[in-house]
C-alpha cells in the first residue's frame, strides 16, 4: 500500500514533526495528488474531494506525532483519509446498504462467466469511473479502499464497521452494483445468471 513512485519519506516526516515547514511542504507536494484522487473516488463531488483533501492534511499535521515510523506512511495516510471520507459520508446519513444488513444471507450464486467476461471486455477505465459516481456510498467506499489504496480486509472491516468475514461479500455486492451501473443489467447486478 504505497503511493506509486514515492519512497517512504522518513527524513521529511522527522523534519515535519520537528516543525520544519519546508518538510511539511514536501510531504504535501508528494502526497496531496494521491490523496485528492482517493477522495475524488470516494466522495460524490469534486468540491467534496478538495475540501476533504485539505482537511486530511490539516489532520495529518496535527496528528503526525501519532504516526508510528516503523509502519508504512502511505498506509497510515490512507487509513486517515478513509476514516475522514467515511465520516463525511456517515454524517450525511448514508443509507445502510442492503449488503451490510443481510450479508449473512447472501445467496451463493454462480453467474454466467462468459457474460461477465464480455461486459468487462467492453468497458473502459473512464466508463468505470463514471459508473463509480452512480454507486451507493458504502459500495463505492469499499471498492476504493480495496482497489485504490490496497487496504486489507481487516482495515476495510474496521472502517465500514462490518465483521471481517463479510468483507468479501460487501466487495462482491459492490461489484454487482458497479456492473449494474455499467450496464443496467438487473440480473447481472443481482449476481444471478445472465
Amino acid at each position, binding site marked *: 500500500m504505497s503511493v506509486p513512485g514515492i519512497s517512504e519519506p522518513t527524513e521529511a516526516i522527522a523534519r515535519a514533526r520537528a*516543525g520544519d*515547514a519546508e518538510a511539511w511542504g514536501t510531504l504535501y507536494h508528494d502526497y496531496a495528488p494521491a490523496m485528492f*484522487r482517493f477522495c475524488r473516488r470516494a466522495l460524490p463531488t469534486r468540491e467534496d474531494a478538495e475540501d476533504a483533501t485539505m482537511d486530511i492534511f490539516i489532520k495529518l499535521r496535527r496528528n503526525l506525532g501519532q504516526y508510528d515510523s516503523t509502519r508504512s506512511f502511505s498506509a497510515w495516510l490512507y487509513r486517515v483519509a478513509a476514516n475522514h471520507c467515511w465520516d463525511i459520508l456517515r454524517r450525511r446519513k448514508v443509507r445502510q446498504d442492503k449488503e451490510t444488513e443481510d450479508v449473512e444471507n447472501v445467496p*451463493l450464486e454462480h453467474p454466467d462467466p462468459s457474460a461477465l467476461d464480455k461486459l468487462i471486455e467492453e468497458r473502459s477505465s473512464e466508463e468505470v469511473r463514471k459508473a463509480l459516481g452512480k454507486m451507493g456510498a458504502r459500495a463505492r467506499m469499499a471498492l476504493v479502499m480495496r482497489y485504490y489504496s490496497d487496504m486489507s480486509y481487516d482495515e476495510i472491516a474496521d472502517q465500514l464497521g462490518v465483521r471481517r468475514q463479510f468483507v468479501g461479500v460487501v466487495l462482491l455486492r459492490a461489484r454487482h452494483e458497479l456492473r449494474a451501473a455499467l450496464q443496467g443489467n438487473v440480473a447481472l447486478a443481482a449476481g444471478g445468471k445472465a
Partner: protein
Amino acid sequence: MSEPDDDVKRDGNLDANLAGRHLDEVTCLLYLERQLDRARGQEVSAHAADCASCKTLLRALERESRLLTRSMLEEDEALPSRLAAFQERARKSMQWIWGLVFGLAATGIYALYEGYIQPLQTQLDQAGFGGSNLLSLMIFQGAFWKGWQSMLTLIEVLAMVTVGVFCAVFFRRRLRRGSAMAMVVAGLCGMIALPPQVAASEMRHSESITISKSEKIKGDLFLTAARCRIDGDVDGDLYVFCQSVDVNGHVTGDVIGFAQSIRVNGPVDGNVRVGCNNVTLSGTTGKNVLAFGDSIRMDSDAKAGGSATVFGGTISIDGTLGRDILSYGHLVSITGAVGGSVKAHGDTLSIGSTAKIDGATVFEGKKPPEVASEAKLGSPVKFIKIEPKPEYRSGHYYVWQVIWAAAFILFGLVLFTVMPEFSRQATNYAERIGASLGLGVLVGCGAPIAAVIACVTVVGLFLGLSTFFLWYASLYFAQIIIGALLGQWLMGRTSELWPLIGRMIVGLLIVRLCFLIPHIGGWLKLGVIIWGIGAISLAIYRRMQPLVAQGMPAMPSPIPPGTTIGGMQPV
C-alpha cells in the same frame, strides 16, 4: 496485505464433495484475493482445473479487479489550484513563530550583553585587558589558544575527527546525505589546509620530574607528575598538571598550570595563568597574571609588566605591577606598587604603608578598607559597601528572574525544535521519578569527576572538556525537561511538538517560580536538576541500546496452484 481467513465457512458446502457443482462467486473472489486458507484454496484450484465454467469465472473476476484498479489509479484530473495554493499557505503559517523566536533570541542576547558582559568587559579594561572580551582573552588570544594550536598532532586529529563525526551525525537528518558529507569533508579539508603550527612540543609524564639547570627545552613543554621542578629554560610555553610545581628556570612563553601548589621564581616572558590551591610568584612576569586559588601571593621581589586578575581567599600583592589589579577575594592586602588602578571585591581590603597606587582604587566590600596613612595613592579609596540584605528584596532581582526565564524558554525552544524526539523521550522518562532521581545523582556527581580525570590525563583533554561542557548544559536542560513534564501533568499529555513546547513553557515558568521561594527554593532547584539529569541520562541510555529486531510480518500463505474454496453450486 491480505491474510487467509479461517472464518469463512459459510455453510455445509465447504466440506462437501465438489464433484458435480460450480464454485459460487464469493468463493471465487476470496480465492483470487487470497483470503481462503490453504486447504480450501487447494480445493478451488483442483476444481477450477477441471471445470471450464469456474475457470472462466475466475479469469473474469480477475480481469474485473484489474480493470477496477486501473480505473482508479489513472490520473484523470490535475490537482486543483485551490489545493496547490493551500501548500503555500501552510508554509507561510509557520513564519511568525520563527519571527518570535528570533525576536526573543535578540532580546535575550542584548539583555545578557548589557547586564553581564559589558560591565565585565569594562572591569577588565580597567584591569589592563583592554580590547579583549573575557572569552577571547582566555581562549582565543591568550596562552590557552596557543596551547591548543601547538598540542600534539594526534590530539588535533582526534579532536577534528570527533567534531567531524558529530557534525555528520548532526546534519545527517537535516540535509541530504550528499550535502552533509560534502560540508563535513570540506570543513575537515579546510582545517587540514590551515598552515601548520610552528612550535614543536614535548610531553613528559612521571611520578617526579626535574628539568635540570643545564637542560634547555626548545618548544612547548607539557608536564604531568606528582612533583615538578623546572630549573632549566623553556623556549616556549610551559604546561603543568601536578601536585607541586617549582619553576626556577626561564620560560620564554606562558606558564599555564593546574596544581595544588605552584611557585614561580624564574622569569616568565609571557603570561602566568594558574589555578592552584597556593600560588606564589617571586620572579618577573613579562605580561599579565591570572590566578585562581585559595592563597595567592605576589612576593615583594615579584614583578609583572601587565596587570593581575586574581580570584582567591587570601590575596597578597607585595610586588610591583605595571598595570591594574582586579581582585575577588576574602582578604585582600596590597603593600607593593601598582602602575594602574585597583578594583577589589571582598570582605576586607588592607593597603599597607609601602603601597603605591598610581590610578584609582575602588573597593566593594562589607567593611571599610584599612589604608595606612603613608600609602601613596593616586586618589582616595572609593568604598562601596555591600549591604547584606536578601537579594529578593530588590527589584533588580526580579527583572533578572524574568530575563532568565525568557532565556530558559528560548533555550527550551531551540532544544525541542532541534531534538524533538529526544526531548519527548526525556520528558517521558522523567515520569519514572525513582529511576531518574537515582541516575541523576550518579550522573550529576560522576560526570564532572570523570571529566576532570579525563582532563588530567591530557590525552583525554578534549573528551574531558566536552563531557564537562555537556554536563554543564544538562544542568539547564534538566530544568526544561521537568518543566515540560509538569506542563504535561497540568495540561494533559501530547505527542505533538508545538503543544508540547507550550506545556514546556507553562511548566518551566512554574518551576522557576518555585525556585524563588526563600529557603526551600534552592533545594527544589537541586532536586529538579538531579531529576532532569536522570531523565536525560535514561533517554541517552535507551538510545544507545541496540534496537530489538522487529518480528517478521505474517506472510499470507502462498496460494497453491489450483486453490480453494467454499461453496459449490450444482451444475
